């Protein structure tokens, strides 16, 4: 398994990386952890002429809260998310998902930015970020722009990033008190991409009603998706078992899975329904209802 030959660049500044992207245009590919790109190159599913390794750029690996947001540098590795006390205590949804991504050695190199920028609906972070109502920061020749996560995943392996843009940061609104989240994933074996995955993040108001909720799904549509209908059914409501079931059914109806080795369409929809139900219950519990 030998990839096609390519030219390798390892810029040490963001500006340098963007300049290279401008120079090489669509013949170039950014590489962060390389754990989506290199496997594709080995199978020659990707054959970029230029690989721009941005992992040496300083200052793009961080996890901290600032100005009402949790900010995660795009080059932050999965392992850092997994080990972060801040994430663990306040964003259990991210911890849940991270632990289910690939395996520990992959997580030592794979980055959260790469996981999103790859635009693969089978990846787990897209749904996580959709549920958390995140936005991403893209840097290009004309400076930075913030893209709402809802506008980021455009379709099958397609994102809103321009060819000369680099994803630099993920911003997640700090959840209010009485918030909780959970990520559940059905997989054929550990390390597998999801048969279906469900991310739920919610907050409860003083009376215990669902104040805000994000529900998003992994690998059951061409691009990672939110189930807005299910969210709306629950927003402002007291989360009875019955209502949760109804919302879960909506999510299952709204997704658009393909039949493949992981299962039939009906199976995947049903898994979505079950996982949405369970994830909401778990999120409510974590919110301290």
């Amino acid at each position, binding site marked *: *398994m*030998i*990839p*096609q*030959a*390519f*030219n*390798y660049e*390892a810029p040490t500044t963001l500006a340098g990386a963007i300049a290279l992207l401008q120079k090489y245009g669509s013949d170039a590919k950014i590489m962060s952890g*390389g*754990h989506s790109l*290199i*496997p594709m*190159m*080995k*199978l020659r599913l990707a054959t970029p002429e230029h*690989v721009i*390794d941005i*992992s040496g750029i300083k200052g793009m690996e961080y996890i901290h809260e600032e100005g009402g947001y949790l900010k995660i540098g795009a080059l932050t590795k999965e*392992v850092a998310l997994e*080990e972060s006390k801040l994430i663990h205590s306040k964003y259990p949804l991210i911890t849940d998902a991270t*632990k289910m991504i*690939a*395996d*520990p*050695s*992959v997580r*030592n*190199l794979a980055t959260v930015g790469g996981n999103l920028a790859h635009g693969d609906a089978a990846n787990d972070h897209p749904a996580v970020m959709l549920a958390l109502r995140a936005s991403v920061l893209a840097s290009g020749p004309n400076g930075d722009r913030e893209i709402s996560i809802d506008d980021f995943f455009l379709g099958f392996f397609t994102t809103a990033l321009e060819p000369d843009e680099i994803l630099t940061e993920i911003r997640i609104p700090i959840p209010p008190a009485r918030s909780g989240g959970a990520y559940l994933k059905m997989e054929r074996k*550990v*390390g597998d991409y999801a048969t279906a995955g469900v991310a739920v993040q919610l907050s409860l108001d003083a009376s215990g009603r669902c104040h805000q909720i994000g529900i998003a799904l992994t690998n059951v549509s061409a691009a990672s998706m939110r189930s807005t209908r299910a969210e709306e059914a629950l927003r402002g409501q007291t989360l009875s078992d019955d209502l949760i079931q109804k919302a879960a059914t909506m999510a299952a109806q709204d997704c658009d899975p393909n039949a493949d080795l992981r299962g039939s369409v009906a199976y995947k929809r049903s898994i979505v329904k079950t996982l949405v139900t369970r994830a909401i219950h778990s999120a409510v519990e974590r919110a301290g209802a």
Partner: protein
Amino acid sequence: MANITVHINGVAQTLDVEPRLLLVHLIRENLNLTGTHIGCDTSSCGACTVLMDGRSVKSCTVYAVQANGKEIMTIEGLAQGGLHPLQEGFKEEHGLQCGFCTPGMIMRCVDLLERNPNPTEDEIRWGISGNLCRCTGYNNIVKAVEYAAKKMQGAEVPAAETVA
């Protein structure tokens, strides 16, 4: 061709490599360190696991150029004046049979124990879940890691109990 310097098992090696050369091929073919194995084409098996700056990585999913300036440790570099406690653990607890997965498994576990010196059985099982073993059924690998964990914390480890 790119000129890189990689510190392999403590020795700096400067070489000209093609950017597409995978780290595992650098290790096996260029440097003749064949303890690191290749078991798949899809980053699935972990036979190729080495340490890069102290963290386990699948060297089939890293380009050699990415290792420029980094410290790589392979199984050959692990024993320092006697077997590493993990190597000893695999030997004592019968943690290997054919040995194909073993170098990768051990390098993975070096990282595991570094971060979690006293793992539970469950943590060990999840910790090695990216490394396939066809022979052992994993029971004794878990025991080997437990043995090493104890030993690394300075405990006297009793010789393996008689089994079956």
